[in-house]
């Protein structure tokens, strides 16, 4: 039976892992390669590295980071942040990333998803969606781009389904309302998206307790749960998380 994945997320800025509250107020959490290797040793199923600066200068740094991680970590990892072209995806995959996530560039140019899927296979292509609850349309979420700074008129559920159709192999769904709050995932959002697509969905944003992770899987239907603060700062270990979920009859790799 396929297990639910526990995925620590490492937001990287200037070669350091940082974690903000609601995408702001960055706080230092350590060296990305070291932290990645530690998570691998602790039993994480996968890692996500997000380059949150995503400038031309940081692009070279992120390729070097991917190379270093790949030399030291023997579990899959996804890299994302500011990726715009098939060539950049190719470079990151060749450097050792298992998957690449695209966000803003896919909104601007949806063919990026189909071209990448046909070349690399859809299992490499992760569509990252930053979702914000719509003030105008209750019960709907709008897609935000440019690291969450720019809301669009695109509906999250429709965009997720469109992304799947174009060739995305997975959706990394971040609730901007919940992110960094430690108040729980937005499981209405997770449920709306997992019901609308057939590809795996990684729930992200809001993990504060072990119950939150369980709820994202059971209520939200998430195939995987992403977390940062609760594991970076030592509140819980990966083992704590997996033992808790296993006791509640969720299949985990333990």
């Amino acid at each position, binding site marked *: 039976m*396929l297990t639910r994945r526990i995925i620590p997320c490492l937001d990287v800025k200037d070669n350091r892992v940082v974690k903000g509250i609601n995408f702001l107020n960055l706080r230092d959490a350590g060296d990305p390669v070291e932290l990645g290797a530690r998570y691998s040793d602790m039993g994480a199923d996968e890692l996500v590295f997000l380059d949150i600066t995503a400038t031309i200068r940081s692009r070279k740094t992120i390729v070097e980071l991917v*190379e270093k991680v*790949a*030399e030291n970590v023997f579990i899959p990892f996804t890299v994302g942040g500011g990726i715009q072209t098939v060539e950049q995806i190719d470079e990151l995959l060749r450097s050792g990333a298992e998957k690449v996530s695209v966000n803003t560039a896919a909104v601007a140019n949806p063919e990026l998803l189909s071209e990448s899927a046909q*070349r*690399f296979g859809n299992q490499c292509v992760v569509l990252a969606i930053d979702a914000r609850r719509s003030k105008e349309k209750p019960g709907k979420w709008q897609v935000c781009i440019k690291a969450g700074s720019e809301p669009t008129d695109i509906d999250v559920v429709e965009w997720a389904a469109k992304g799947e159709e174009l060739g995305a192999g997975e959706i990394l769904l971040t609730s901007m309302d919940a992110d960094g709050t430690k108040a729980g995932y937005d499981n209405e959002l997770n449920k709306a998206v997992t019901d609308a697509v*057939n*590809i*795996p969905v990684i729930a992200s944003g809001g993990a504060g307790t072990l119950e939150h992770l369980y709820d994202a899987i059971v209520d939200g239907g998430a195939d995987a749960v992403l977390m940062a603060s609760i594991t970076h700062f030592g509140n819980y270990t990966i083992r704590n998380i997996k033992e808790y979920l296993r006791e509640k009859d969720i299949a985990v790799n333990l």
Partner: protein
Amino acid sequence: MIVVIDYNVGNVKSVCNAFRHIGCDVELSCAPEAVENATGIVLPGVAAFGYAVSALGALAEQIKEVALRGKPLLGICVGYQMLFDTSSEYGQHNGLGLIEGSVVPIPAGRVIPHMGWNLVKLPEDMELLAGIGSEKHFYFAHSFYAETSDRHAKVAYTDYGFNMPASVQKMNIYGTQFHPEKSGEAGLKILQNFYDICKREALTC
């Protein structure tokens, strides 16, 4: 020296990194002499099947030929799928035809791609999977799988709502649908097993 075939698809570096980590000499190459002189060949693969086959080009025939002569060959993910006769991913494509069978879509009615860690039952008589116990989780990421009809092939299965082949072995030809280079310690043990097989074969040749 184990040669990992470099044919312009993703993830080749991860495979090399994992072999180096276990202390194995490995070379990333697409040179015919390297393939000829290698103690073993690894055909990695993160790509769509059609793209991978055309990227492999003329090397396909050589790999097939050295494998039929008995050189150990390990296919991983799409590299594993290419060991079979055909695939229907984005059109109809021919594989190397080393193992009878076809690569077909995972049946609808479940989340696809099959992505993540799934439990593989490890048969005792499959040398590649030895020394890990009777079952273990490995990392998968694929939407197609190989259905084999080859009665000379040994098969290890995983459960994804149906019995899905996860690894095959036919004489000196080995393959894993999952990624041993991304499956932590158990995955590294599989690469170690392949390395040991190559060393042994090199001595007896």
